[in-house]
């Protein structure tokens, strides 16, 4: 697609969004059986898959740290993730993204609980449409939670950019390619910034405004991440709720009609909060 003449017409962007609107996000938790934690995330047209392994042994051995775990983050784009085939393997860009993404999630992990071990995070971009690093960080922090790795909280991430001289939240491909600035931000639920990069130019005032917009965006994403993690088990819990009650009433009625059957200590709570 060639550069459009105008990106914002009557306050509506090319894909029909308002300037402060995120692209739709779809999150699935625990999609990989072999990984300790995993997450599949769609962010607009971006599709990323995150897997977390560990804590596990460090290989090679000399990389291990005596007092904390090492966190390794590998961001990789599939060769088919972009229109023109991407040469597979790490390149300058993916090494950079891996580094900044690792630094975005590492402060939230209690690495001191697992000295001499490694926590490996893999993010594979299956389809790219601007903002893959933010999608990768969002997916990685969900996968870390799914792996039951102790964390201070989830990291949420989104980008703010400038097109037509106006600040917009969460750039899509054309806005990113032909826009004037792109600023990915990652932050904790408290609003502490763990990642801030900027490509292009923003004035001091614009930067302030952009950060406010990013904070708002991250808050929305945090909600979605939270819902995804809770929703995964909530559905099962609710599906079985009726079953459980049914079973309980049946056992009760059986006990009253067919004399008292053998004394069984029925653990109503299912045993989860015993001890």
């Amino acid at each position, binding site marked *: 697609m060639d550069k459009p003449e105008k990106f914002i017409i009557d306050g509506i962007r090319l894909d029909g969004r308002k300037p402060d609107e995120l692209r739709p996000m779809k999150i699935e938790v625990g999609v990989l059986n072999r990984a300790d934690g995993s997450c599949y995330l769609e962010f607009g047209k971006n599709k990323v898959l995150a897997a977390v392994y560990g804590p596990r042994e460090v290989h090679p051995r000399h990389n291990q740290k005596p007092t904390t775990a090492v966190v390794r983050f590998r961001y990789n784009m599939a060769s088919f993730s972009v229109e023109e085939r991407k040469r597979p393997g790490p390149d300058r860009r993916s090494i950079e993204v891996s580094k900044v993404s690792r630094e975005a999630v590492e402060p939230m992990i209690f690495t001191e609980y697992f000295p001499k071990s490694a926590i490996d995070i893999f993010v594979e971009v299956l389809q790219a449409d601007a903002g893959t690093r933010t999608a990768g960080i969002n997916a990685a922090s969900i996968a870390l939670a799914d792996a*039951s790795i102790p*964390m201070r909280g989830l990291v949420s991430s989104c980008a703010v950019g400038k097109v037509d001289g106006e600040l917009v939240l969460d750039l899509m491909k054309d806005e990113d390619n032909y826009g004037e600035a792109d600023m990915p931000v990652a932050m904790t639920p408290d609003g502490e910034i763990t990642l801030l990069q900027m490509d292009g130019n923003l004035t001091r005032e614009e930067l302030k405004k952009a950060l406010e917009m990013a904070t708002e965006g991250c808050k929305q994403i945090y909600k979605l991440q939270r819902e995804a993690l809770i929703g995964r088990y909530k559905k099962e819990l609710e599906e079985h709720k009726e079953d459980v009650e049914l079973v309980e009433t049946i056992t009760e009625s059986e006990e009253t009609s067919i004399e008292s059957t053998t004394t069984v200590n029925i653990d109503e709570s*299912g*045993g*989860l909060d015993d001890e």
Partner: protein
Amino acid sequence: MNKRQIIIPGDVLSEDAGIAGDGTYVRDGKVYASLYGILSEHNKIKVVPLSGKYMPARGDIVIGIVKEVTFSNWIVDIGSPYDGLLHISEYPQRINSEDMSKHLKVGETILTQVKEFDPMMKVELTIRNRKLKTIRSGRIFELSPSKIPRLIGHGGSMISLIKKETNCSIIAGENGRVWIEGSDCNIDFAIDAITKIEQESHIPGLTNRLYDFFEGTKTQKNESDKEYEKESILDEILE
């Protein structure tokens, strides 16, 4: 009572720092969750994880697999980020260093106990106890270590139920490995039951469902037995 609250890392659980238990951390006098799991409020506030790696603790009974034999130690994989060390002196009999592989070869499975777990993450194991030994029969089944308390149940109620219903001897290692001994089809049966526990441990009424599971398989068995009988009767008549 059947309400299960799912917690994610960073959730504020309490304003009282004194009751912070496992799976939580304290910041600015507030208790936050550090794990993704289910809230448990007894005298301490805890988050019970739904998955996760095994972290050794002193006195734990674990099932390990010998990985390597060194001059005076067996290196044992105990399914945790840290390997266990079984020193030659912790073997029930006195043996020579050269004979170590004769007594315990690489790849053998042992029922062992964590003797010491120090801050340097060194895990020392022992099998100097009557109950501990090399495992040479039966099958090992692995599940998430966080589900072991569910498998054992209230004072061992769950595991004794499975034992009773399947006629198997079952020993659950703290590290998520379970040793099942019995006839082949009974082991399969026990593994089905354990898999059910693993998949549904977070849903209330687990014990009830397991009773139903055993009842269901029993009637199935009876039916298939009856059918078999019918067939054999039919055969006899035909003959």
